[in-house]
């Protein structure tokens, strides 16, 4: 009786899943017809990886029946149990794999009901069948083969492409029966460019300049201008802060503050100086190991020391020393190589050809650091090994470090032991279960680590990563940059290029961009410009019913991207459009308004971050990237908008839409203050209601309002103004937002009414959306 119930439940679950998976596939996978060749990489491996490799894959310890389906030799070989072959090329009916994935017998079928992996759906079964019929040919995983620049695809509409990118995207559109959208309006484009290149709302002057001249030359000139602005570096650095899990505190228990911000200042300056990506990363991984390393190069290695550091009394030091290195390994593998290797900390990877030994060989690069589980805190805010930065240096060789204070600043950085600390494979990943000793090496599945070329230290690791044949480094970064502009990577799983990751939507484009990036000296500004100059980027984001139906997720880019902007950018848009933004770059992180009592309620009263005292003056109006991040209690207005908690390396943020976000836009003093200050400034200049509303709209929404919008806003203004006229004290209470000095002698009724209108504008969906 009970058994029967289980079978029914399993079947019901499987049916539900089948239904679900049929509906989920929207265009990412074609149903191949006729004799179209089936690709192992694109059609088959995703299925096998998801459904089979957990028990028949790279992990030797979990392998069932001695069978591997990830390598041809084992899959074609004679089965150890039973008769026959798992895969008999050409003959699905004689292949055990095919028989089992089509079986209805729960004791025989694969995946087993106990695995909870769910059965293959009809289209998946069809693909496997056809693949076996066609000879069941295996291929190297796409991401582990070096990228190659293919010829530009031939497209039907030759007029549309503006640069190489467009040939690849148009090719995919044509393949999927889609047409590109018209170019976005000028006002839409300038907002898009300004957000993407500087993270700020375009000023009125910039909007006008762009509007006036629609020539291609102006477009390019403005792109160049925006890329040359200092705010470009700030915008680019936000993404890198997530990769580098940057925070302003140690992140455990009492959570003291720390000074890693000089490193953040270096990152901003590096983007602005257009330091090539290979040098940018090499310095961060191994600046201290370069010959005659400069202080700037050593400072860059703070990248590896941004992880959390445990100051709790009574911890076991070795446990945490290991923990810090595991974190470094994760940051490098997922942030720079696009691989999730953590599984191999405890056992061979279940999906990717990365053994536990491979993992600890990668780990070994970081294991020779002078760090301890707990070490001396130096200068109050850094842990040895640390770098001192004197005032004199800040005025000369390290002039990008912004400090008003003249005392020496200490930053936690990397430094090597003189003699190599042996690295053990840790059984089950546990610090006190050391096994065999291994030496440092890059992941062999990715690319051979040739010890005649590369030293067995972090510098060698960097050299290995930036060898032009390394299949991942360029692809991964190009993809991260692409994601910044289109909201989604060409490989959607930005942090996982392994077998469980998503396949590239435009593989040839990804490779072309990666190779081109390398061929042009890892030039980041060039890559960015290439993207924004493309016709693909310039399309309107209008969603037609046809496109919604054919490509709801906009995988094929037949329209411009439209999505909610990230947390920091929301703050920056509010500050820049209201004119409150402080232009200061870098320096110690700042404390904007935050609801009272947050730090106070969660602290145990120890350390220097027990009380939150907001800054005053211009520090209240600094860009989001400078907001102080207490790692155990990150700023709520950021977290609610999906900012990273900086607990660990993150390469992709969610884009949720929640009621708490609405509450922030309605009630955050920062937004109210910006509304008030802008209103007062405009009223001080002119009492023309229509003109004031129109200008606020232009500044905040960055386009001309429609008639209907003007009507609504004027009506709202008038209704508020009449309320305040009746009760002037009410207007004063409304204007009581933020500490920024009031404009003298403004009409308070008008200012309060306009403030309400502006506050409503800030709450428009369009304002916090890139469109």
């Amino acid at each position, binding site marked *: 009786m009970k058994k029967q119930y289980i079978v029914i*439940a399993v079947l*019901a*679950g499987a049916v539900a*899943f089948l239904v679900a998976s049929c*509906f989920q596939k929207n265009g990412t996978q074609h149903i191949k017809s006729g004799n179209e060749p089936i690709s192992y990489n694109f059609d088959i491996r995703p299925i096998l990886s998801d459904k089979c490799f957990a028990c028949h894959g790279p992990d030797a310890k979990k392998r069932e029946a001695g069978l591997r389906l990830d390598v041809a030799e084992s899959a074609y070989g004679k089965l150890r149990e039973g008769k026959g072959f798992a895969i008999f090329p050409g003959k699905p009916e004689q292949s055990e794999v095919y028989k089992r994935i089509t079986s209805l017998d729960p004791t025989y079928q694969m995946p087993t009901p106990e695995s909870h992996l769910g059965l293959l759906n009809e289209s998946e079964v069809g693909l496997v069948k056809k693949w076996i019929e066609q000879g069941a040919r295996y291929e190297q995983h796409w991401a582990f083969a070096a990228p190659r620049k293919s010829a530009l695809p031939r497209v039907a509409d030759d007029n549309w492409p503006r640069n190489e990118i467009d040939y690849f995207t148009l090719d995919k559109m044509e393949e999927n029966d889609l047409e590109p959208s018209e170019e976005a309006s000028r006002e839409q484009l300038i907002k898009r460019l300004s957000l993407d290149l500087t993270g700020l709302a375009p000023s009125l002057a910039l909007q006008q300049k762009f509007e006036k001249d629609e020539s291609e030359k102006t477009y390019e000139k403005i792109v160049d201008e925006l890329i040359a602005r200092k705010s470009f570096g700030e915008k680019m650095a936000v993404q890198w802060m997530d990769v580098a899990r940057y925070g302003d505190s140690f992140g*455990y*228990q009492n959570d003291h503050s720390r000074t890693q911000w000089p490193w953040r200042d270096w990152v901003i300056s590096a983007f602005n100086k257009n330091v090539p990506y290979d040098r940018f990363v090499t310095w961060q991984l191994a600046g201290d190991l370069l010959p005659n390393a400069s202080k700037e190069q050593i400072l860059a290695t703070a990248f590896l020391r941004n992880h959390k550091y445990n100051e*709790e009394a*009574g*911890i*076991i030091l070795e446990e945490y020393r290991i923990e810090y290195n595991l974190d470094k390994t994760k940051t490098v593998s997922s942030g720079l190589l696009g691989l*999730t290797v953590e599984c191999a900390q405890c056992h061979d990877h279940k999906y990717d050809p990365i053994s536990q030994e491979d993992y600890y060989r990668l780990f070994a690069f970081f294991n020779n650091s002078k760090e301890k589980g707990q070490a001396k805190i130096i200068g109050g805010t850094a842990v040895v090994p640390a770098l001192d930065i004197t005032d004199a240096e800040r005025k000369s060789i390290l002039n990008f470090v912004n400090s008003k204070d003249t005392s020496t600043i200490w930053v936690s950085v990397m430094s090597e032991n003189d003699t190599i600390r042996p690295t053990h494979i840790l059984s089950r990943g546990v610090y*006190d279960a050391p096994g065999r000793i291994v030496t440092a090496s890059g992941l062999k599945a990715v690319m051979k680590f040739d010890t005649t070329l590369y030293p067995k230290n972090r510098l060698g690791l960097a050299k290995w990563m930036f060898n032009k044949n390394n299949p991942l480094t360029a692809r991964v970064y190009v993809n991260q940059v692409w994601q910044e502009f289109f909201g989604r990577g060409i490989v959607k*799983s930005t*942090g996982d290029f392994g077998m*469980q*990751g998503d396949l590239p939507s435009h593989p040839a484009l990804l490779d072309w961009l990666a190779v081109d990036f390398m061929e042009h000296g890892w030039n980041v500004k060039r890559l960015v410009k290439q993207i924004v100059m493309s016709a693909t980027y310039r399309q309107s984001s*209008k969603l037609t019913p046809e496109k919604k139906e054919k490509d709801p*997720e906009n995988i094929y880019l037949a329209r411009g991207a*439209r*999505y*909610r902007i990230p947390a920091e950018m929301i703050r920056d848009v509010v500050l820049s459009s209201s004119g409150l933004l402080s232009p200061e770059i870098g320096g110690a992180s700042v404390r904007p*308004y935050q*609801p009272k009592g947050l730090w106070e309620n*969660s*602290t*145990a*009263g120890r350390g220097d971050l027990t009380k939150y005292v907001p800054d005053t003056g211009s520090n209240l109006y600094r860009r989001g990237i400078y907001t102080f991040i207490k790692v*155990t209690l990150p700023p709520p*207005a950021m*977290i*609610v908008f999906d900012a990273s*908690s900086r607990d*660990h390396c993150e390469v992709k943020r*969610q884009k*949720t*839409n*929640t*009621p*708490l*976000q*609405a*509450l*922030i836009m*309605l*009630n*955050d003093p920062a937004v109210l203050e910006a509304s008030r200050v802008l209103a007062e400034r405009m009223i001080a200049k002119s009492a023309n209601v229509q003109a004031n509303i129109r200008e606020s709209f232009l500044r905040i929404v960055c386009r001309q309002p429609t008639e*209907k919008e003007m009507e*609504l*806003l004027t009506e709202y203004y008038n*209704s508020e103004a009449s309320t305040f006229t009746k009760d002037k004290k*009410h207007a004063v*209470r409304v204007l*009581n*937002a933020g500490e920024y000095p009031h404009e003298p002698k403004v009409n308070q009724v008008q200012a309060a009414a306009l403030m309400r209108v502006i*506050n*409503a504008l800030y709450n428009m*969906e*369009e304002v916090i959306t890139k*469109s």
Partner: protein
Amino acid sequence: MSAHHDEPFRLNTPDLADLNETLDRRAFFQRTASGLGALALGSLLGSAAQASPMSEEKLESIRRQVAPKAKRVVYLFMAGGPSQFETFDYKPKLASMLGKGLPDSVRGGQRLTGMSANQANLPIAPSLYKFDQYGKSRAWVSELLPYTAQVVDELCIVKSLFTEQINHDPAITFFQTGHQLPGRPSIGSWVSYGLGSENQNLPAFIVLVSKNASKDQPLYARLWGNGFLPSEHQGVQFRSGKDPVLFLNNPEGYDGTDREKMLDYLTQLNQVQNESWGDPEVNARISQYEMAFRMQTSVPEVMDTAGEPDEVFELYGPDSRDKGSYAANCLLARKLLEKDVRFVQLYHQGWDHHGSLPKGMVKQCKQVDQATAGLIVDLKRRGILEDTLVIWGGEFGRTVYSQGKLSAADYGRDHHPRCFTMWMAGAGVKPGFSYGQTDDFSYNIVKDPVHVHDVQATLLHLLGVDHEQLVYKYQGRRFRLTDVHGRVVNEILT
């Protein structure tokens, strides 16, 4: 303490019929009427922007795997690690062993924290407090918990909990997220993700932190964080005071009345946008503003306990009138549970007694005892204990030996991950039941060990969710609350 302090603990007495009359009848009907389905809520709270990797159909099928016993959970987390010796794990043989060294055979090479690793000897510290047996179940309870002793027949006491973590931060993170390192979703987030909400005006996962606790160890936002799950599954902290939910109200001094008018215009403005872009996100944003607006009314309403009869405050104890205290939070928790909030998480810090434990325990127990028992009684008489799971416990236990100076009247205890006690009550767990057994030193488990992941698996099971099936694929890997472990502790289930 009033002479009749135990009166409210007489369950099912005829007087209760009168009391039921005074309950908010509307609340009662709201509860019994079919709640807003998780699917409907999915469209309210879960936006279309980030399609959940598990389809609604799949989630639905997971929900149906096991018949749910619990509809909601209240987790009373005793942060810092309460000692089992002075609460539930009675060890009479220790009485005669004051100051004697812990036998090596008992210790068996267990690692020590850096705090007691350098101690010359490990002298045994018997509990200073007396134990007695209570209720029909004859369970042993210390004299520090007189109110809890009165409801002991409702409790399922597990004495054989163990964890792998020996320091606070990783241990509490492990308990609340299934992994010792930060970054994974918390239990409440998993529950919100898997089951959705049944209340359209309140978040599915609400967190309350006692303001009156000794803050010997900090708390971290990650304990109720959503990790890699969409942020709508984040625990929302309700705080006592003017701004119960962050940004719910206008900042101090600012007059934001007439908000409704602005929302009217805003909705119209956004609709203009919706017409020109055709992006469903615009509509989603409009609904979020509507929900935010509803929260501005529903949150203060639910947090206002002024309308509760005196008898209720007496039940939870005198602190319950002091907003933000543990007792007031217990009362508030009951109100939230009545509104079908899925997961209510309380934190009460102050249990980290490395020294002066006897004094510390008196204070801590006094702060939580009456209100905890009051909550059980209140839930029971309102008929919702049967489908509400109540959990009480900390992140690890404490050592039998004294840390630092030991005298007959004073001692401290270090962290002990190898065994500790927690209890559950309500939906689907055996009442008046005790499970697991430790040795005479409460140093090792001798019978029926229960791992942290087992507690998590059991919790999900009671909610009708198979812990092996509630997965979220993130960066190529399927993640679970219980990682690759966890066993439903069927032995404690009804």
